[in-house]
């Protein structure tokens, strides 16, 4: 659907297509419909959980965009991030509950996010270095199997250290704190999560489009050989991609702990599955698409719950995915490619 300057299309449609507003309008329309169906409180729930999915989905899509690997271990990086955040909050920082002093809260949050994101970024890079890089030229399914192997390893290590039962995490943002916005009572934590997610996503988008490393990532994703010929250090670029994607998953882990106040070593699989679905839904390889996909899945799940079909929520998510792919085989924002050679 690229515009052709020679074709006699009316300017409005051409602009519409060039800006690729279609999917965005679809999302806005969908959100509006959902809001009307389920009401403001559930809508807030949906945006919150959607933010978490979006953050994890971005990591998936970045990795896939650059080396075409479905990184099944990514969901477990998210899970490890949640545990890392809990450790940081409880052990060095000694928190147990809500922090009321705003400057102190800001400092604690900053340390928590910074440490967790750094550690998770490192973990992701290490996994890439030792488990995926040797397989870069191997048959495509081999790294897939390896990814699941890594997933098992991460899960089991956390289970051995922390036990199989759910563990409470300190909710340093008071879950009972609410603000009133336009007659609506919204939880502070919900606003915080949404703002954090959007900020990180915008930051990432700017990074990818403005910096050299971001350009290197985009070019590697587009054509690895050409990028190499242009002097891009492939190994470093891929490592950086994993670092950023895993750091974002770590941020999602922090948010999970703050929101739910409880984490478990089995978090990774479900979250990873939904995030992967979100990434595909949005057009795999496309960062904005992954974010949209995450929110879309949040909407679908909460709508299913609100209408009394909670047990079908997972199935509904996949149904939405399949229907979307039937009409747009490359996802909402994906490139409309021809036959891939």
């Amino acid at each position: 659907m690229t515009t052709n300057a020679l074709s006699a299309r009316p300017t409005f449609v051409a602009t519409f297509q060039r800006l690729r507003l279609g999917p965005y309008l679809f999302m806005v329309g969908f959100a509006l419909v959902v809001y009307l169906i389920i009401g403001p409180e559930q809508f807030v729930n949906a945006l919150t959980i959607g933010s978490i999915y979006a953050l994890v989905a971005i990591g998936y899509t970045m990795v896939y965009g650059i080396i075409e690997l479905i990184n099944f271990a990514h969901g477990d990086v998210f899970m490890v991030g949640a545990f890392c955040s809990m450790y940081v909050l409880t052990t060095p920082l000694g928190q147990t509950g809500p922090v009321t002093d705003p400057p102190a809260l800001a400092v604690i949050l900053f340390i928590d996010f910074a440490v967790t994101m750094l550690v998770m970024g490192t973990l992701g890079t290490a996994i890439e270095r030792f488990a995926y890089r040797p397989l870069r030229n191997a048959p495509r399914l081999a790294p897939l199997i390896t990814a699941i192997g890594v997933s098992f390893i991460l899960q089991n290590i956390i289970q051995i250290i922390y036990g199989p039962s759910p563990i409470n995490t300190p909710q340093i943002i008071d879950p009972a704190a609410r603000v009133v916005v336009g007659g609506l009572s919204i939880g502070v934590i919900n606003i915080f999560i949404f703002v954090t997610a959007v900020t990180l996503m915008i930051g990432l988008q700017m990074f990818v489009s403005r910096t050299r490393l971001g350009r290197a990532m985009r070019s590697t994703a587009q054509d690895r050989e050409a990028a190499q010929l242009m002097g891009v250090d492939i190994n470093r670029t891929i490592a950086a991609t994993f670092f950023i994607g895993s750091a974002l998953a770590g941020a999602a882990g922090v948010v999970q702990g703050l929101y739910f106040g409880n984490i478990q070593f089995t978090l990774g699989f479900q979250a990873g599955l939904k995030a992967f679905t979100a990434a595909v839904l949005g057009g795999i390889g496309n960062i904005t698409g992954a974010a949209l996909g995450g929110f879309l899945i949040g909407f679908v799940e909460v709508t299913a719950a609100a209408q009394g079909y909670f047990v079908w929520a997972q199935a509904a998510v996949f149904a939405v995915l399949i229907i979307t792919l039937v009409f747009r085989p490359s996802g909402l924002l994906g490139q409309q490619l021809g036959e891939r050679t």
Partner: protein
Amino acid sequence: MSAIAGSTAGSTGTDPGLRARLRDFSNRHRSITVIVGMAITAIALPLIVLLPPFSSFSGQNIWLDGFTIAGIYVLLALGLNIVVGLSGLLDLGYAAFFAIGAYTYAFAASPFTGNEFPFWPMLLVGALMAATFGILLGAPTLRLRGDYLAIVTLGFGEIVPIAILNSSKYTDGPNGIGGITPPSIGDFLFPTTGNPWPFYLTMLALITLSMILIYRLQDSRLGRAWMAIREDELAAAANGVNTVTTKLLAFALGASTAGLAGVFLASKLQTVTPNLFRFDVSFTVLAMVVLGGMGNIWGVAVGAFIIFMIQSVFLKQLNLFFDNVNVPILSDIDFLQYQFLLYGVALVAMMLLRPEGLFPSRRRRRELHTEEDAAFGELGDPMGAAPK
């Protein structure tokens, strides 16, 4: 028989002439080779487990029972091999077809529905039901690229158990369907315990039949069409291959094998529940196919057997093993909690050491490698488009 890749572990010292002649014979007389091979396995396995150290673990009956269940996974791996290995279609939701076969037999022969259809014709019916669903699944995915296909198949793999779980009126939901009739020959009803031979021999027969059929398919025009699609779909279409029919047949035939396995499982366990058909079954079968060597039929069967033994027998018995052997530190560890760790480490290690699988397909090897490539120790890249 299938040869282990020559580029790694040394195959020097054996008579190349004899091996080449054996290989030649087996290629020309596939069915006889399969039958002979399976017969040898059928006799060898029960004999091997009578020897120590196997005999100290469990009696022969238990080993045979385990082999029978392993056989179910061999069937599944053979079927998935058609879809993933031969045709290059990444299917992550294979367990759905397994479920359909199992529930078909459950509806056919349990007090839940009141039907009492005999086992043997239901094998065919189960396979057909699964094949039908295979076509239903394949139809909307025809336009999708590799990894989009993967997520859609994953979606189906999740939707089917969820649908079964939540449709209590038709499937009794989480309770599953119990009291399923075991197979019978005339008046002889297969015993549930004590005598594993009826189930064991039936499973061997099913595997033998499937292997013969799959080899026939592989060597036919359809098989070549599958491999053409796997390598380069555009070129295949340009050469007159009907990609739509070929893909649908791949799904259908792959699914039918799973349906077969499902009917057998239902008759052996006498109960089916949605819990038996979750994503980890799909993943395990995929790992078996990849580990065995995608595309290589015998390789996949052996890979399935090995992984099943590791997962179901070896990892579970580690505690008992170390209790018997009495190594100082290791005896104190509760290995049950380390199962995933060891399994994950094994998977990663196996992929790092041998990503093409234990027994990579010789045909693929021949297709892709010239002498020079072999000299550079290439690992092979049949499905990706990695720069060389």
